[in-house]
């Protein structure tokens, strides 16, 4: 009795906890529900690079991530798929042309010597830029955590995210203005990325630091010698701009004041580690992809369409749930009603689990959840059928219920394990959408084991303590010779 009360309290606590989680932690919606574009990119081999290594993939991923970030869309993601594919997700982008920019032309690289007497202003502008960038980060963070939940988007309440988006845009404009102001502190010198033949990272001869080597063609070499001679030893720097954005501002040592840096090759040294050095090298190569990349799959869903899907699925889920609830109550009477309570607890716990584990809910995922509502009562059906059999066999009510649970358990276990095997196969071998379905179904099966067995058992045994429920006909209609004692 005491144990039952404890379990009852636990179930109640879990249900309340689930409600709190569902209403506070936003559900992550897949691109097919919130609208957006998903690209699958395949990295191709070249004559020079016949096999794609993990480093190659990392390099490509970094370049693509940089470009994706430049789009200014929040919650983007770039993931590696298998050996040679990348999955790029761009929420809210329903124009493939915009998405394609990710793979578009290389950025414009420019070398400019700093104008005299601009040091102070350079520092001030830099500070302003950093401040804006911090602001942007904070806003994007807010946009991420405040992303619309399933219910919000269903009711069309999107006023606040819209405001946030506007703020983000205005900060982005401020950053651009700031970038231009910095650029204007550097004089144009007609030395662009076209003159650059190579840029690569290498470890320095001593210490753990890395450096970046740049090489120019002959015309570029002359120009670079000229620029470097002019500013050597002055404390001014050479600004390296990528699409008007300053990526590096090395200064030139006084020893080159006579001739400048000649020979068409220079080394940028600084506080680089392997990663930041190779990042800079990639940027200097014009952000060019180290390997050719092909788009093998694009999927775009407009936001209106996504919301329509959500509304329809919610509707289907509700109707499905209600139908199952009615069926159980009508067919199984009192235990059916208790199983209904367990089923509602099941739905709450499963949704909360999606939120906690950060499951991204896709359309097939929702289908998996709706399907699992029907399957979740399977264990109850097994148990109640068994209970009825025992009652018809002349056992007392309490013992019938007990042995119903006990005897049905091996069937319940076997049937759920086989479903989980199918889920596991789907999860390991399936692609994106399919994985979502497998995961939601598997979570559902696992939780249903708890709710349909522990939860409904506790409720049932608890109700047997109440004399008004201790009637066999509430369990098994048409039981002619009801046992007298219970």
């Amino acid at each position, binding site marked *: 009795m005491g144990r039952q009360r404890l379990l009852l309290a636990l179930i109640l606590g879990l249900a309340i906890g689930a409600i709190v989680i569902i209403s506070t932690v936003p559900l992550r919606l897949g691109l097919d529900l919130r609208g957006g574009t998903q690209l699958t990119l395949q990295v191709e081999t070249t004559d020079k690079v016949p096999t794609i290594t993990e480093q190659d993939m990392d390099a490509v991923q970094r370049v693509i991530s940089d470009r994706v970030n430049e789009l200014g869309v929040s919650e983007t993601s770039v993931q590696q798929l298998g050996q040679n594919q990348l999955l790029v997700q761009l929420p809210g982008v329903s124009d493939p042309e915009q998405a394609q920019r990710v793979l578009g032309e290389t950025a414009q690289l420019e070398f400019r010597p700093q104008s005299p007497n601009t040091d102070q202003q350079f520092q001030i502008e830099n500070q302003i830029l950093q401040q804006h960038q911090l602001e942007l980060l904070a806003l994007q963070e807010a946009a991420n955590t405040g992303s619309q939940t399933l219910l919000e988007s269903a009711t069309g309440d999107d006023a606040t995210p819209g405001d946030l988006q506007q703020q983000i845009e205005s900060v982005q404009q401020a950053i651009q203005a700031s970038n231009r102001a910095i650029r204007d502190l550097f004089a144009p010198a007609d030395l662009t990325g076209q003159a650059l033949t190579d840029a690569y990272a290498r470890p320095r001869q001593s210490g753990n630091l890395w450096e970046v080597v740049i090489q120019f063609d002959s015309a570029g070499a002359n120009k670079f010698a000229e620029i470097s001679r002019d500013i050597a030893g002055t404390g001014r720097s050479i600004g390296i701009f990528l699409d008007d954005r300053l990526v590096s501002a090395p200064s030139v040592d006084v020893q080159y004041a006579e001739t400048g840096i000649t020979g068409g090759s220079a080394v940028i040294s600084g506080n680089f580690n392997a990663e930041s050095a190779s990042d800079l090298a990639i940027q200097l190569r014009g952000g060019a992809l180290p390997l050719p990349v092909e*788009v093998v799959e694009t999927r775009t869903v407009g936001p209106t*369409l996504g919301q*329509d899907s959500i509304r329809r699925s919610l509707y289907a889920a509700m109707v499905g749930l209600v139908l199952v609830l009615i069926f159980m109550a009508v067919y199984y009477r009192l235990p059916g009603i208790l199983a209904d309570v367990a089923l509602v607890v099941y739905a709450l716990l499963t949704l909360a689990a999606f939120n906690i584990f950060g499951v991204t809910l896709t359309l097939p995922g929702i289908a998996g959840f709706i399907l699992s509502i*029907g399957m979740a009562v399977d264990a109850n059906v097994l148990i109640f*059928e068994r209970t009825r059999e025992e009652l018809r066999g002349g056992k007392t009510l309490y013992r019938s219920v007990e042995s119903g649970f006990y005897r049905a358990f091996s069937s319940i276990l*076997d*049937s759920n394990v086989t479903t989980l095997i199918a889920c596991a196969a*789907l999860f390991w071998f399936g*692609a994106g959408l399919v994985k979502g379905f497998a995961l939601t179904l598997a979570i559902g099966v696992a939780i249903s084991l708890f709710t349909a067995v522990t939860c409904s058992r506790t409720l049932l045994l608890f109700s047997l303590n109440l004399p008004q429920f201790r009637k066999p006909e509430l369990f098994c209609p048409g039981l002619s010779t009801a046992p007298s004692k219970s």
Partner: protein
Amino acid sequence: MKLDIIRQRPFWWLISGLVILASLIGMIISWQQLGAPLRPGLDFVGGTRIQVTRNCSQADCASPIDSGDVRSLLADQGLETAVIQVTGSEGQSVAIRTRNLDVDEQSTLRSALDTAIGPLDSGSVQIDSVGALIGQQLFASGLLALLVSFAGIVIYLSLRFQLDYALLAIVALLHDVLVTMGVFAWLGLLLKVEVDSLFIVALLTIVGFSVNDTVVIYDRIRENINLYPERHIDELVDSGVNQTLSRSINTTLTTLLPLIAIVLFGGDTLKFFALALIAGFIAGVYSSIFIASTLLAWWRVRTGKAIVGLPEPSQPVEETP
């Protein structure tokens, strides 16, 4: 209700045989017409599918979109072979399926559509573009998942039961998968319904669910064998099936109810997914009750294990008491 399934075995096997025959015929016709047993969707053969909807606050939505307009527009772009389907409420949407278009071609097509039948609603556009290569990849991984799950189920059931239970459960599974494929082969032939990667998901779910049904019945038969080792397998199978009959039917019902809700209220994407599951689950419950059980009885009699508790188990059993 009491089923006498062992005695009625020829009848139940005949029904399954006919349905499977019809499925195979559907797949063979489909193979001849389309080069594949089922009508393959974008996911498997590659191509581009663009669906656009008119923005009715600006466009003239008095009449449905004229597919003739769209066809001549596509011909201008050298896409005569495209498949056009006017959909949506009151025919205000159109879905166009073409060869694989690159992004520039997609944009050209969209703006041409916008001028010809628009203005279009930019919020409800849907574009799927799949390269042929990735299509094969999706298909291969789906098939692999199916085979692995079969193997996993055989291993698990051999551990929990015995090998013959496991193999016969797989026979019942193949039955369900074949029937579902047959239904979609015919849907593909008659209504041009295509199968996509969700169909493979549906098949795998059917595998999981249908074996579930079979396991419950086998579990009960095994329990009966342990309780009454002296009885003949035919009798034990009959009572096992009947004891679990209302469970089998009720579980299938509770699972079908939400699926029917999806068919009625869900969007286009999920509709045929739910339909595949419904077909598979009905085939599944049928095969569990009538095929898997009778197969087990038939097999045990054939291999001389009709009665477990016989004093001399080595003695072959031909006649049953």
